[in-house]
């Protein structure tokens, strides 16, 4: 690799600032009175600082906190469910042998390429029949049993040596013990990667609640942001941006704290 030339960074930083501008605008607008939101020229530093926007979206009738709580509830159950079922199934597909395993796996391969949108219509009807339409379970249940998660776990377990299991079986361990005591601890990095991705997918999901939730009292966070748009399609800038800032904080924290793992998960789940 050639030696560093610092000036290479200049156009990149200029571009990076342009990329960050929408986020800077979001934060700036969240902290200013609505009359200043569209001021020409743009006023980056709010004057005065309008903290009220945040108190409005954190308390009272327009609070996004209940929606925040619902998003947490949905994400926790989805992630826990997906990790559990995907790990077990992925392990069995990789390290156990039973009749019909490969045919079943082919069925999994086939379902993985179905776009989620194709399933929106039947799921809508289906959840109505089951009485789950307009409940959080309509968001949670399909997310707990994913084919993609199973794939990722299977790919990991396939790469693990079989000798560990044989030694353990020799010592009299049953299949469940072999799985939980030997292979599962090895899977911690993959589990955390899948967990991070599953959390971000769940947290940002907008399409599913758009179709399957109708009562605003059951909106998750992304959908609840649309509450700040009035019937004419006018957006109240200050409170909307304050709520948006709150909605991206958890994903941002996950990203900053677990940056290395997150990036590894993004790059290694797909192509390697």
């Amino acid at each position, binding site marked *: *690799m050639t030696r560093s030339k610092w000036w290479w960074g200049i156009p990149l930083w200029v571009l*990076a600032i342009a990329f960050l501008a929408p986020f800077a*605008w979001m934060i700036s607008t969240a902290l200013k009175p609505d009359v200043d939101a569209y001021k020409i020229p743009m006023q980056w530093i709010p004057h005065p600082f309008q903290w009220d926007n945040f108190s409005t979206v954190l308390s009272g009738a327009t609070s996004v906190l209940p929606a925040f709580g619902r998003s947490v509830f949905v994400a926790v159950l989805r992630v826990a469910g997906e990790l559990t079922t995907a790990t077990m199934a992925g392990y069995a597909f990789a390290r156990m042998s039973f009749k019909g395993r490969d045919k079943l796996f082919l069925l999994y391969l086939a*379902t*993985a390429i179905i776009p989620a949108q194709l399933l929106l*219509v039947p799921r809508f009807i289906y959840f109505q029949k089951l009485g789950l339409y307009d409940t959080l379970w309509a968001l949670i249940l399909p997310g707990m049993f994913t084919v993609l998660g199973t794939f990722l776990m299977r790919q990991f377990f396939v790469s693990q040596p079989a000798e560990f299991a044989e030694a353990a079986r020799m010592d009299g361990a049953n299949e469940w013990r072999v799985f939980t005591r030997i292979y599962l601890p090895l899977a911690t990095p993959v589990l955390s990667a899948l967990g991070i991705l599953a959390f971000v997918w769940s947290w940002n999901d907008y399409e599913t609640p758009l179709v399957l939730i109708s009562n605003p009292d059951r909106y998750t966070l992304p959908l609840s942001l649309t509450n700040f748009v009035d019937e004419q399609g006018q*957006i109240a800038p200050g409170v909307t941006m304050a709520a948006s800032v709150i909605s991206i904080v958890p994903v941002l924290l996950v990203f900053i704290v677990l940056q290395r793992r997150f990036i590894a998960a993004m790059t290694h789940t*797909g192509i390697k």
Partner: protein
Amino acid sequence: MATATLVTAGTKARTEQGRGIRPSGWIGFLFIAPNLLGVVAFTLIPLISVLVLAFTDWNLVSGIGGITFTGIDNFVAIARDPGFWHAIGLTLVYVVVSVPLTVVLGLALGIALNRPLPGRAVLRAIFFLPYIVNVVAIGMTWLMLMNPKAGLVNQVLDVFGLRPGWFASSHWALPALIVMAVWGGVGYCSLIYLSALQDAPRQLYEAADIDGASAWAKFRVITWPSLLPTTIFLLVTLVIGASQGFGLIALITAGGPGDVTTTISYYMYQTGFQFYRFGYASAIGLVTFAGVLVLTLLTWRAQRGRALND
């Protein structure tokens, strides 16, 4: 992401089969059962219902008893439906413009970010940020940034005497969506390219340096061929993603103004969830899926043919 995993998984399934694995009988089923039951209930049964619904005429109001089988009527109607073809055309424009732009910019950015630079880790994070933020927060922000009268984007463009109407204009609404899509996807592409670049064959670069090869020659002969599988992967996943692009459109333009941003997935959504024509919406979904599938398979075949020739 799914597609690439699929292919490697498929080949591994054959080679790994049986190696050092004892028959486990029904215990294997027990391990798979929780996931399998969920997949059958929430994916497989809905999928089978799409296949059935596509051959029926059914609106929600008439109840289950109101389902009438109409054979291939829906598919005949699709062939004659100007709204469908309009939506397909728009989707193609959206895909053909946004995907190559995202990939090319992502490649340039990936190569730049692979060099030693001050603040490289921070830069990588900044470009990736738009990819992980929820579509509503992003959409609302851009909607205000692209306000034709007072939005920040037009304040900047005003310097050059430009004042596009963006989402309010029938000419600019689609380009505005494309700008947002590229902004959102470039960081993801550059990240995938970065990880591929790190695997590039270092000895070849050293050999090329000894031969005194130019930077362009090194890119053309070493870097680009080693990035080809990654590029194909990105093209396939981005084409699939963009042809299903829906969230931003539902949120910002609702297909408008008029129908200038009614892409195929939004058209399907309208048919199903605004007009409650579930049978017809299912048929549109199936036809679109079949089209995307054929495109994907063609891309994979092209890649395989290439790999064999090399």
